[in-house]
C-alpha cells in the first residue's frame, strides 16, 4: 500500500498510467481523451506523459474505434477504449458481441481489448447518460465484465483486465468517481477476475450486489446492526464470469437473499444471480430469493423521478424487513 488516499477516479487514472508505463503496447483510444482529458478527466495528464500515439483522440464513431481497437488487439497491442458515457456502447454492440466476443471460439484468435466508461445513475443524467449496460452483454459469450465499487478494486481489476487476454468490459460508476475514496494500492496490486468479495460478513440475510449499490447495502447493514440484524454483503465485482461459489456460499449461510443492482428489473443481471441461488441453494433458503432493481422505465431526469427509479437505502431496508418476517 502507498499510504496515499485517492478517489475512485484517481485510482483508475493511476492504473492506466502505471499500465502504460510498464507496457508500451498499452494505448488509449476514444473521444476527447487527449488534450481535454476525457469528459470526466479520467485520462487527464496522460497525453502529456505518453504522447499522441498512446492517447488517441478519434472522430465520433464508437463502432469505428472499438473495431479499430479490436484490430490492433489482434495484432498484439493492448488497447484501452474509453466510452465518453457507457450509454454509447450501444453504438458498438455489433463489434463487441459479434466480433470481439466470438473470435476466440470461432477461429482461435484472442482479442485482448479492454473497454471502459462512466456508467450508472444518481447524477441526473437522464436516459442517455445514466445507463448500466451489463445486462445487454452478460449473455454474450466470450466477454468478461467487471464493475468495481472501491478504490482497491478499481485499481486492481483494471490492472488485471489489462493482463487478461480476453475482451474485458470495465464499467466505472460515475456516482462513485469522486465520492468514494480509499488508500491507493501499490502498483503490483491485482484483483482476480471472477472472484467476488465478502464486503461485510453477517448471519441473517445476504445482499448480493455491486458498484454503487454496494455502498447502499453497506449503509443499510450498518444501520440494522444496531438492532442486532446481521446482514452479509457480497460485492460481486466481476459480473462475468459470476463467482458461483461465493454466491452459493452466502445463500447457504444466511438462507435469505436479496439481489440488488441498478438495472431495470426485467432481464437484469439480478435475475441470473437469483436463478443460480434458486437452482443451487434452494434447500438452504428460508425465504424466496428476491430482486431489488430499478423501474422498468428509461432512466428519468427530475430528481424525484430518478429517486423513485433507483434502489436506495429505504427500499432495501423495507425489503430486508419483509424477508426477515418470512
Amino acid at each position: 500500500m502507498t499510504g496515499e488516499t485517492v478517489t475512485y477516479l484517481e485510482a483508475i487514472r493511476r492504473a492506466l498510467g502505471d499500465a502504460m508505463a510498464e507496457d508500451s503496447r498499452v494505448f488509449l483510444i476514444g473521444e476527447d481523451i487527449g488534450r481535454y482529458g476525457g469528459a470526466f478527466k479520467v485520462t487527464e495528464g496522460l497525453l502529456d506523459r505518453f504522447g499522441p500515439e498512446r492517447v488517441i483522440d478519434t472522430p465520433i464513431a464508437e463502432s469505428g474505434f472499438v473495431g479499430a481497437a479490436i484490430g490492433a488487439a489482434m495484432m498484439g497491442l493492448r488497447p484501452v477504449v474509453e466510452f465518453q458515457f457507457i450509454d454509447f456502447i450501444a453504438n458498438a454492440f455489433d463489434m463487441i458481441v459479434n466480433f470481439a466476443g466470438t473470435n476466440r471460439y470461432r477461429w482461435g484468435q484472442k482479442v485482448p481489448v479492454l473497454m471502459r466508461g462512466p456508467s450508472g445513475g444518481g447524477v441526473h443524467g437522464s436516459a442517455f447518460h445514466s445507463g448500466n449496460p451489463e445486462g445487454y452483454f452478460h449473455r454474450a459469450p466470450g466477454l468478461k465484465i467487471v464493475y468495481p465499487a472501491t478504490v482497491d478494486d478499481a485499481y486492481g481489476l483494471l490492472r488485471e483486465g489489462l493482463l487478461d487476454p480476453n475482451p474485458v468490459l470495465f464499467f466505472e460508476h460515475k456516482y462513485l468517481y469522486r465520492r468514494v475514496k480509499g488508500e491507493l494500492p501499490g502498483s503490483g496490486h491485482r484483483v482476480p477476475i471472477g472472484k467476488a468479495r465478502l464486503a461485510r460478513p453477517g448471519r441473517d440475510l445476504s445482499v448480493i450486489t455491486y458498484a454503487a449499490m454496494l455502498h447502499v447495502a453497506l449503509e443499510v447493514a450498518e444501520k440494522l446492526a444496531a438492532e442486532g440484524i446481521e446482514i452479509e454483503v457480497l460485492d460481486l465485482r466481476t459480473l462475468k464470469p459470476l463467482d458461483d461459489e461465493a454466491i452459493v456460499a452466502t445463500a447457504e449461510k444466511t438462507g435469505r437473499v436479496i439481489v440488488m443492482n441498478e438495472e431495470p428489473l426485467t432481464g437484469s443481471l439480478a435475475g441470473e444471480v437469483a436463478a443460480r441461488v434458486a437452482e443451487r441453494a434452494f434447500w438452504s433458503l428460508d425465504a424466496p430469493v428476491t430482486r431489488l432493481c430499478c423501474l422498468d422505465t428509461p432512466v428519468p431526469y427530475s430528481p424525484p423521478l430518478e429517486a423513485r427509479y433507483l434502489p436506495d437505502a429505504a427500499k432495501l431496508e423495507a425489503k430486508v424487513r419483509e424477508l426477515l418476517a418470512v
Partner: protein
Amino acid sequence: MRAPLGPLDPGAAAAAERLAATDLPKERQLELFRLLQLNRRLEERLTNLYRQGKVVGGLYGSRGQEAISIGSAFALEPGDVVAPLIRNLGSMLVRGVTPFEVLTQYMARGTSPTGGKDCNLHFGDLSRGLVSPISMLGALIPVMAGVALASKLERRGFVALTYIGDGGTSTGDFHEGMNLAAVLEVPLVVIAEHNGYAYSTPTGRQMKIRDLAQRAAAYGIPARIVDGNDVLAVHEATRRAAAAARAGAGPQMLEVKTFRMKGHAEHDDASYVPPELFDEWRARDPILRFERHLLAAGTATRAELDDLAARVDADLDADLEAALAAPMPPPERALEGVYEPWPGSGA
C-alpha cells in the same frame, strides 16, 4: 481426372479486350492462372457437394469475381494482413489456405480450420496474415483500420487490406471505418467490389451515385476505378495502392467493376437478374480473358495451360477424397474455446 480447357469460344474471343500491361514474369503469371483455375474448380466441386447435401450450411461463390480476390492478394507482401469477405475465396488461396481446409469447413468436419465451429469461409489465421470474415458487412473496415493502426504505431511496415461490396458501402461501419482510417492516416487498402447486386437489390436501389469511388472522396481517400475482370489490372492497381499506403500516404481505395455471375448463394437462383446481363458479362469472364491473353501474348502455350488445369483437378480430386473421409467433430467440442485461457494474477 483430366479436364482440358477446350477451344476458345469465337464470340467471347471477339469481345475480349486487351488486359493491362504487367511486368510479372512468366512463372508468376502462370501462378495467377493456376490460382484462378483452383478458385473456380474448387467452387464447382463445392456446388456439387452442396447439391449432394454434404455442405450442411449455405454456399457462397465468387464466380466471375475471381480475378479481384486473386489479383489483389497476389500483389501483397508476405507480412501484410488480409480480411476477406464471403466472395474472396481466392484471396485465401493466395495466402496459402488449402482446398482441404475449405472443403472440410463447408462440410463442418472436425478437422476443419474451426473444428466445426463456424461455417464457409469464416476462419482466419494471423500466421498466414488472414483475419476471419464476419457476416456483418462493413465491420471489417474499422477492424482492419485497427490492424493498420498497429502497423503504424509499431512501425512494422505491413499493410492491411480488406474488401467491401456495393451493398456493404451503405453501412455505418463502412463510413466510420473509412473516416477513422483517413483521420488516423493508417496503411489500409480497401477493395470495393461493385458487382451489381447486394443479394437481390441492384446497386441503383442501394445508392444514388454511379461509382463507389465517389464515396472515397468524402473521406479524402484516393480511389481508382479498375476493371475487376482483368486480373493484371487488379494486381497492378493493388500493388500501387499498397505501395502508397506503405509509404505513409494513408488509406487507399480501389473500386473494381465486375458482375456476380450467380445468385447471392447457391440457394438463390438469381431470377431477378435480367438474363442479358449474364450474357454480357459471361463474355468478359476473367479467367477466359486471362487465358486468351496468355496465349495471344505468347506467355504460355495451350499445352502448358491445359497441363496446369489438369494438375489443379487432380489435386482437388485427392483433396475431396480426404475431406469426405474426415470425421465430424465430437459434440463436447461445442463447449470448448470460448475464452483464451488465463490463470489470473491471484489476489
